[in-house]
């Protein structure tokens, strides 16, 4: 692979316009019937298996899982538009980083962008995992949160062989190592990460949006013009009220709910979105919205929309998408190899230049600047500027000061907690 393969291709811009990692319409309509039937069958099957595989016995022997040579192929499930892409001579789209891995490791990768939401993807896998069968995937990418917890406590993912990741040990960012939700990275290794902050359409707001309360101020954002992300808003509001979600109690949850109700009473909320807020922001149906950093930064820097990502004064929510190996996977050795491959700085840079999220490999920042210089030397000033803007973005490479103001969301550990949380927050978006 030559360096040139990494160059940006107008095709990518066109595709990115409509679909970004999280703003793809979740399987609304199609496939839902199938999923619910699957869940039903699963729910039925769970009867016999109660207490069997579950209850976190952690009955895996790492040495036994990771033995021998890697298999000849592996299947990798990821989110749409979450890896580098380029076109080969014949014009078909491929993933340069994966092609590099295939060549080096001699393992064929079946990469599919089939995950549109943690919950929906999990809903599809759960019956299989519960029955103790192979899901067909060797690597899946899941965000920290309740699905991640459900996978680990039920032993539905393999523990990782921590001796098989030299690149990770050498190159991973401090925030990517030993996260609170996965001590010692025993189950997952971060793929990419990002912030939930505020996305602003600069032509639609009055004055500057700097803090959470601005999202409840009709003078600034207008009536019925604010988007909220229903799965992130509880944690996001808590952080901005000065509460650390990680250690929050139900009383703190109610405080956040009170703010959300207050905001709703102001008449500013247009909708509570799952993930399809970005087009609304571009189409001027929203003036400001809770937003994921990469979505907004890409739209602003690379597509030139009048948009801006705001890191609220009082903090933002940090999330990490993790690579996991589902229990029963056929090629865990190969999976470990691939996961570590993406911690080589050059490889990580290929991904980051494309996806514009926070890379778990800080060395990508310098490499991106080097690529910018190289592009400039070749006369591609536009590309050089874009690469430089990305490399210097505090949202791709947040400072310690920034990170100090972020927190992970509350990780709900028991069914009682899940129920209480849901009973407090669901009535706000489900009205």
């Amino acid at each position: 692979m030559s360096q040139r393969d990494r160059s940006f291709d107008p095709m990518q811009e066109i595709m990115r316009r409509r679909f970004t990692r999280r703003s793809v319409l979740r399987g609304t309509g199609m496939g839902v019937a199938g999923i619910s039937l699957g869940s039903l069958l699963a729910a039925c099957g769970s009867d016999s298996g109660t207490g069997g595989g579950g209850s976190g016995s952690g009955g895996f022997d790492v040495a036994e899982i990771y033995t021998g040579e890697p298999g000849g192929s592996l299947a990798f499930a990821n989110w749409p538009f979450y890896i580098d892409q380029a076109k080969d001579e014949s014009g078909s789209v491929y993933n340069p980083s994966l092609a590099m891995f295939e060549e080096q490791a001699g393992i064929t990768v079946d990469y599919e962008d089939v995950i549109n939401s943690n919950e929906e993807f999990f809903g599809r896998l759960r019956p299989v995992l519960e029955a103790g069968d192979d899901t067909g995937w060797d690597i899946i990418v899941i965000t920290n949160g309740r699905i991640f917890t459900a996978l680990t406590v039920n032993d539905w993912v393999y523990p990782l062989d921590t001796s098989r990741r030299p690149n990770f040990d050498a190159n991973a960012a401090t925030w990517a190592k030993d996260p609170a939700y996965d001590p010692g990275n025993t189950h997952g290794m971060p793929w990419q990460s990002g912030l939930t902050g505020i996305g602003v359409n600069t032509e639609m707001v009055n004055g500057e949006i700097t803090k959470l309360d601005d999202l409840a101020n009709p003078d600034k954002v207008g009536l019925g013009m604010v988007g909220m992300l229903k799965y992130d808003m509880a944690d996001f509001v808590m952080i901005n009220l000065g509460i650390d979600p990680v250690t929050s109690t139900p009383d703190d949850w109610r405080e956040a709910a009170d703010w959300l109700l207050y905001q709703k009473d102001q008449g500013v909320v247009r909708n509570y979105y799952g993930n399809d807020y970005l087009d609304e922001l571009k189409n001027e149906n929203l003036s400001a919205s809770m937003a994921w950093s990469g979505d907004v930064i890409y739209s602003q820097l690379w597509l030139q929309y009048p948009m801006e990502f705001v890191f609220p004064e009082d903090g933002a929510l940090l999330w990490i998408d993790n690579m996991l190996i589902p229990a029963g996977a056929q090629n865990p050795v190969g999976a470990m190899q691939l996961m570590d491959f993406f911690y080589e700085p050059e490889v990580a840079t290929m991904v980051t230049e494309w996806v514009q999220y926070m890379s778990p490999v800080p060395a990508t920042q310098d490499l991106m600047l080097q690529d910018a210089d190289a592009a400039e030397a070749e006369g591609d000033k536009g590309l050089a500027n874009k690469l430089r803007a990305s490399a210097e973005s505090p949202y791709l490479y947040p400072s310690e000061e920034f990170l100090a103001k972020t927190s992970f969301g509350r990780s709900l550990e028991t069914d009682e907690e899940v129920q209480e949380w849901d009973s407090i927050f669901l009535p706000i978006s489900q009205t």
Partner: protein
Amino acid sequence: MGTRRRLVPYYLLSPGGVYLLIFFLIPLGLMVYTSLQSGGLLSGGFTFSWEFQNYADVLGSYQTQFIRSIVYSLIVTFVALLLSYPMTYWIAFYGGRWKSSLLLLLLMPFFVSFVIRTIQWKFILGDNGPVLGLLKTIGLLPEGFGVLSTPFAVVAGITYNYLPFTALPLYVALERIDKRLVEAAKDLYSSRWQAFRKVVWPLSLPGVFAAFLLTFVPATGDYVNASLLGGPGTTMIGNIIQDKFLTENAYPQAAALSVILMVAMVILATIYARILGTEEATRAAAAA
């Protein structure tokens, strides 16, 4: 010989019967079974425990959305009937050799995915989209005016999406009416209006009934329109069920909601059939 003969209808019935058994009755049974489970994902999964409390819980929490769905759906059905009846009447009686082409036009939207069609409305009806944007520029609408995220957008979206379900059964019923009956009525000195009221309308009632069921039942459970075109305050019961199944992983509650919705639909359809029961209604109208 005689036995075999008597069995023939059952043989003929068996493919459909087996299909229904596998794809309808068994899932239905599983749904009821799931709705009586308790437990959670983080504590070893769900177990069957005759948990009738699920029903009480969801009914208590979501009656607003239940009622809203039924109200929206009734409006949709009424509007769709109002729009379809004159249209299909015209096609059936005056369509002539264009009948098939006109019907094809009616079905045209069906060739595009349901979701894509609905998303298009989002662009068309956007606050600064081609319609509202233009009207705002020429000063016919105030700046802050919007259609999306309102109940109106949701009801209009559902009406648009289900219109062919209303129109087709109506067309079939109207098309089957013997035109000579209308002529006969006129020969007997009825006015056009009387001919319609006493001949065409009663004969088309089975079509109205079918159109009602085919529109009302799926429209009540619709969740695509509310999630794409709606806003806070337009959530329908289908959205709740979808959220429960796919995002909260609260399978028993989702199943309980589905069972309640199904039973409610059956009851409403039965009442409707009693009131406007096709045969009685036809006879009554004919006698009047």
